[in-house]
């Protein structure tokens, strides 16, 4: 277990209940300095509640949150000095220009580096002189990212940072996060879909109905993920032997003949599969991209339905 000196963020049995409305229940999560952790869960699973507790917008019912060893309630100002936040529900006053928005929401921070602001806006392809009311949803999201990334902080708390961004900008965002992480910054981000997190996060925490259902390294999830494959021999006569050979390979399952090809599922490394196919003349081999979301939910969840709702 890491010592508190290595932890950027730690929630200890954090519980927040709002009468009948559920917040989070006994969430204990540790985020090491320099890590990128993705919170994944359906809307209402508690991602936003957890993040807003870090910033002291809401107070724990029981348990606590510490950021760099500082308590989120009693040392809230110090915590926020080292933390920048991107809200999930992002709304700016429509009559303000981008520059005004940035000034307004960083006015109480040390002066920003104007070059850094300009380079951020350029990279996200955002015109800071336009009024918020004229901006598309995606552009407003970019403005939120500028507000979050412009100050010099040690922790970024980003609620649904990529919602509304097109794939190209999602890649730019991943690049931005990687650069900040290389500079020693820790990132906690959330999404209701795994695919938005898997390119960026090194660890994923799954929240379900307010509880932390699982936390794991992405590499471990990848290792458990199942790929679906389809091998087609040149000579259909080989079909039964090919199926038999595949079925003997460890960690291969669901081998079925399907017309002129054999379909199968495989967990972990593909090497043994390829070697077993070596004896045959293979006309085509298709392997689908591993669905980490599937892997995550099949490994940790009894039902995938509620966790994957969007």
């Amino acid at each position, binding site marked *: 277990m890491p010592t508190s000196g290595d932890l950027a963020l730690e929630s200890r049995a954090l519980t927040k209940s709002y009468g009948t409305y559920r917040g989070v229940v006994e969430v204990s999560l540790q985020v090491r300095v320099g890590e990128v952790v993705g919170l994944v869960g359906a809307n209402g699973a508690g991602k936003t509640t957890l993040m*807003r507790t870090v910033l002291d*917008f809401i107070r724990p019912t029981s348990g606590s949150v510490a950021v760099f060893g500082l308590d989120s309630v009693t040392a809230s100002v110090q915590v926020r000095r080292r*933390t920048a*936040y991107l809200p999930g529900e*992002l709304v700016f006053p429509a009559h303000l220009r981008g520059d005004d928005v940035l000034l307004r929401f960083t*006015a*109480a*921070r040390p002066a920003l580096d104007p070059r850094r602001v300009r380079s951020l806006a350029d990279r996200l392809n955002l015109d800071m002189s336009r009024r918020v009311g004229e901006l598309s949803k995606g552009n407003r999201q970019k403005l939120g990212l500028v507000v979050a990334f412009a100050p010099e902080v040690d922790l970024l708390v980003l609620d649904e940072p990529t919602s509304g961004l097109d794939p190209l900008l999602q890649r730019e965002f991943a690049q931005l996060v990687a650069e900040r992480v290389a500079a020693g910054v820790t990132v906690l981000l959330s999404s209701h879909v795994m695919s938005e997190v898997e390119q960026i996060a090194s660890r994923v925490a799954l929240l379900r109905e307010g509880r932390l259902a699982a936390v794991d390294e992405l590499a471990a999830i990848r290792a458990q993920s199942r790929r679906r494959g389809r091998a087609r021999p040149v000579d259909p006569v080989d079909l039964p032997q090919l199926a038999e050979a595949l079925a003997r390979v460890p960690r291969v399952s669901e081998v079925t003949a399907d017309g002129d090809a054999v379909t199968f599922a495989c967990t972990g490394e593909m090497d043994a599969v390829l070697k077993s196919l070596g004896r045959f003349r293979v006309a085509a081999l298709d392997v689908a991209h591993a669905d980490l979301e599937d892997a995550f939910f099949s490994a940790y969840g009894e039902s995938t339905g509620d966790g994957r709702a969007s």
Partner: protein
Amino acid sequence: MTRSVRWSLLRSGLRLARRSLVLWAVSIAALVVLVVMVYPSIRDRTSLNSIYGDLSPAAQKLLGGSDLTSATGYLSTQLFGFFLPALLLVFAVGRGAGAVAGEEEQHTLDLLLAQPVPRRSVYLQKAAEVVTGVTLLTVAIWVPVAALDSAVRFNLPVAYLTAVCVQMGLFCAALGLAAQAVAAAVGHRAAGIALAVGYAVLSYVVYGVSASVHWLIYLRPLTLWRWYLSNDPLASGFGAAETGVLAGVCAVALAAGVAGFERRDLHA
């Protein structure tokens, strides 16, 4: 933290509100000029006084007096008795209720508070914005009356004009800060507006009717109108008790507002 960062939210707030503040100030000043310029045509027509003079004491109180043609009577019935404080209340209560709860309802409070400032400081800087606005509008009232004083032959001592302006400003600031406190304590602008406006209207009626209904006299100290008007600042200058009570209500509203806001969970 340097001083410049400490008041930075107030400065950025005023900067963003400057256009609407200027518009308010110019409009109110223009209205005051208009009303003041009418005075010379009324000054010598003492027969007009019978219009208000025939009314019941309560109605006279509600209208700001019975004397239309003297300088203090005219200013009181036409401006300071009801019209200007009502306008200023609209501004103060609207701004006060919106100061914190408005940001919360527009989902911008999270981003303001994500900055390294105590909640108390955000609340107080917002309150300072409200008070600055009320002060600006009070000045926008004082200046034209003072400037036109000799032209329309009010011959009103500057100290008396200043007294009525300060007491009116404090009166409106007190209700604006009360609206801010209530709205911020629950996170809804409407709550602050409803309570402050409801109180202002009800207490205005109580203040006026207490002139005819004897037992209501005991309720008068509970109406802020009494602390704004009943020492007749236009005719007698500052009232120490009046100014003190109004300033005290401002302070209590601020303290209660901070306490209520600091304790709360904020709406997402």
